[in-house]
């Protein structure tokens, strides 16, 4: 039974003070729990509820409403594949079919045998000018082709693999490293790492630290 680490519970208990009303801490707390465990177990949701002094059923009700909360195990790298209209017009369905083969799963939600990959079809992610597109490990990937999907999968499978043309910030941010932690729903450390790459430089992607 996966449960949350004591220091995370303490972190969750400190969340409500950041908001005008404590209940707003539910989603940031579930976010932290999910970052630690990979997905939200019933025990984790109960622990979040206890830490926030809420009903466990209420917390589960929130978790089940939002698509970015996972209640089943997911792969280490989750592909969120947009198949809404703009992406479908540009061939998203074929891309998804190719992805299934590339990561070795038969259907959405299934985790590959090595535990590395899973995917789901999601609705519009607001990058329609780059259709078809997807989101993996907190980054968008644009103008997908079968080749790009293969490269992306290889890159995730072997982190040292030369980078695909992954999406990075339009401009480098000198302030990024010094940025203060403003919100509890910040990405885990390193999550924003590749955004700090200098413009036009194809340096190797920094690997996101998972959990």
């Amino acid at each position, binding site marked *: 039974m996966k449960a949350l680490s004591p220091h995370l519970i303490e972190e969750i208990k400190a969340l409500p003070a950041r908001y005008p009303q404590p209940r707003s801490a539910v989603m940031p707390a579930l976010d932290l729990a999910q970052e630690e465990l990979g997905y939200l177990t019933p025990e984790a949701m109960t622990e979040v509820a206890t830490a926030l002094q809420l009903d466990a059923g209420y917390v589960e009700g929130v978790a089940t409403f939002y698509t970015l909360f996972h209640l089943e195990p997911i792969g280490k790298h989750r592909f969120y594949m947009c198949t809404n209209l703009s992406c479908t017009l540009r061939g998203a369905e074929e891309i998804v079919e190719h992805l299934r083969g590339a990561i070795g799963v038969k259907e959405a939600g299934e985790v590959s045998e090595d535990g590395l990959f899973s995917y789901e079809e999601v609705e519009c992610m607001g990058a329609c000018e780059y259709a078809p597109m997807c989101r993996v490990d907190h980054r968008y990937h644009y103008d997908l082709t079968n080749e790009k999907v293969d490269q992306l999968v290889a890159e995730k499978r072997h982190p040292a693999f030369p980078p695909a043309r992954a999406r990075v910030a339009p401009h480098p941010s000198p302030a990024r490293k010094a940025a*203060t932690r403003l919100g509890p729903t910040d990405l885990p450390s390193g999550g924003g790492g590749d955004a700090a790459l200098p413009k036009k430089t194809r340096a190797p992607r920094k690997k996101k630290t998972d959990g």
Partner: protein
Amino acid sequence: MAEQRGTVGGPVLTEWFAKPDLHTLDVYESLGGYSALRKVVTTMTAQQVIDEVKISGLRGRGGADFPTAMKWSFVPKDHPGPKYIVVNADESEPGSAKDRYLMENSPHALIEGTAIASYAIGGHEAWVYIRGEYDLPYEMLRDAIAEAHAKGYLGDKPFGTDHALDVRLYRGHGAYICGEETALLESLEGKRAQPRSRPPFPAVKGAWGLPTAVNNVETLSTVPWIIRHGGVEYASRGTEKAKGTRMVTVSGDVQKPGNFEIEIGVTYRDIIEGLAGGMLPGRKLKVFWPGGSSAKVLPASMIDTSTDLDGLKALGTMGGSGGIIVMDDSHCVVKAAARLLRFYAHESCGKCTPCRVGSNWAVRTYHRILANEGSQLELGILERVSDGLQNGRCLCGLGDAAGWVIESTMRHFHDEYEDHCLRHTCNVGKALAHA
């Protein structure tokens, strides 16, 4: 890095987008950024800010097209205690990507506009509700807010004055319905995002039960420009009733998809054939969604329609969130409508029965039609479901939008529906055979 696809150096919103490192406070300020906020907090009253924005004629760019100054003026001035500006950065309308484009290029413009809006309603704290999938814009806003605090532009004494201003971030977790303002407020309060019944309106009872104005990213990003150049200058652009410029996202079967800043009043031909480079080689325009998937479709014959917001309303459709989805003659309208209904059914929050049940009825009906099991019966079901979803039978616009997709595609492409339902053939096969 992915190249920017869209307007740089446009008249208002994208004015400075060609400048490298615009997302940093130093560059933004060197071009004139934060001069509007400085002017507002040091020399203007809240009412003067509202008046200036009223002169500009700025209307909400999230889709509802409501006059921004009027929305701010609804927030009670004499209310003791906190009042909030909530920024709707939950852009999830299919076909719309302009808020992402604005935030990734110029996060400080949004922060400056948000702070000005807070001042205008007499509030001190603003919350940006940003969709969870927008990792990069979130990080950029987070860093930009930290920079603004470090400079003393936000905080207890912005520009040395006594009107404290702060901008906070809250991440969504994947729900289209959060783009609807009362559902967004529910979500911000840590609940399932289900729209509230109105009244009370958010201006009276909004975030955490307190007076609130909810504004779109693009709307607020426009405000600093209006303060810098004056409302009259902004109102000199656009049409008689719909002032200014706005962003549109063009996606789908065009040569150059992108986010473009347009002066309101240009035609869809200007956008699709001009800015977006026209159709793909050898293909012809069939249909387009003029303002996100929720706007009623317009067939190719109506490409000369103006982007004037009132004109679109008169046609029964809308400029909406500016997401223009373009489809050519190689795609089937029935399949496209079926895909969109799957979206609306998936995103229905479940609160109102017509939307929850109707959208799923439509999905099942489309499923039968596309499996060549359709008949006159299915056509009738779609018509009835479409009617049942519309006309204010639901608390928010999601149900209506689902109905509009069915109704407008059936109205303009009834022959394709008949081909599918009665003859079990697809019109697109014919179009391709002739190509």
